[in-house]
């Protein structure tokens, strides 16, 4: 196999490129959600929990 050395180099390069591309796409998938506006539900829940904290007779439902 006279070309095996070059072929090996090429493979390593391809794997690196693929890995980099997958990395970029993974971040794109994550960032897509992270950059969405936070749904009101989340803020409302936290506000409610905070109000219950200041109110001493918090009931754990």
């Amino acid at each position: 196999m006279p070309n095996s050395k070059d072929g090996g180099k090429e493979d390593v390069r391809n794997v690196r490129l693929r890995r980099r591309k997958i990395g970029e796409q993974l971040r794109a998938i994550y960032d897509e959600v992270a950059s969405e506006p936070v749904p009101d539900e989340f803020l409302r829940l936290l506000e409610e929990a905070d109000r219950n904290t200041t109110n001493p007779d918090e009931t754990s439902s």
Partner: protein
Amino acid sequence: MNSPKTGDSAFKAELTALIPHLRAFARSLCGDATLADDLAQDALLKAWKARDRYEPESNMKAWTFTILRNSFFSEKRRSWRRQSLDPEVAEATLVANDDPQANLELLALRNALARLPDDQREALILVGAGGLSYEEAAGISGCAVGTIKSRVSRARKALIVILESDLTGFNSDSEMRATDVFDDLMRQAQELSTNGTP
């Protein structure tokens, strides 16, 4: 025992700023948008209730991620574990931008992610997308740094294998329309969610 009020409001501000990350991490773990938000809200409230146990100088993102992933992995009775590719997410991916090839590739990656073992997917998301160090990811997952490194490495290799076989399938028939590819991916995800339960 109770933190002073000022501590609470600083904690609350920092926690609020982390909500987008909780949602993104949850979505990566469980794939389904509605279930993911349920999981993220659960983690948000658990974090708030546990705020007295938070050490101010530590990394709050890693701390909240730990709470979230522990819920995901421990509460098996909850539907969060139903691993599947959300049809709405998949459709949104297909129309996300003008480049059909890029859309297909993203959809294929989402599908491949859903087929990874939970621990490998978690490690890859934390390190590869969530911007956490190997050390932080190990702390979150409760395992050794070497374990995280090997999970990330196995996850990458597995993704490449899955993507290779998927994309080869797509390209072998250039007439295959996006909706056919979509149907095919949904079928795979369906099989996965019915067979994949331990």
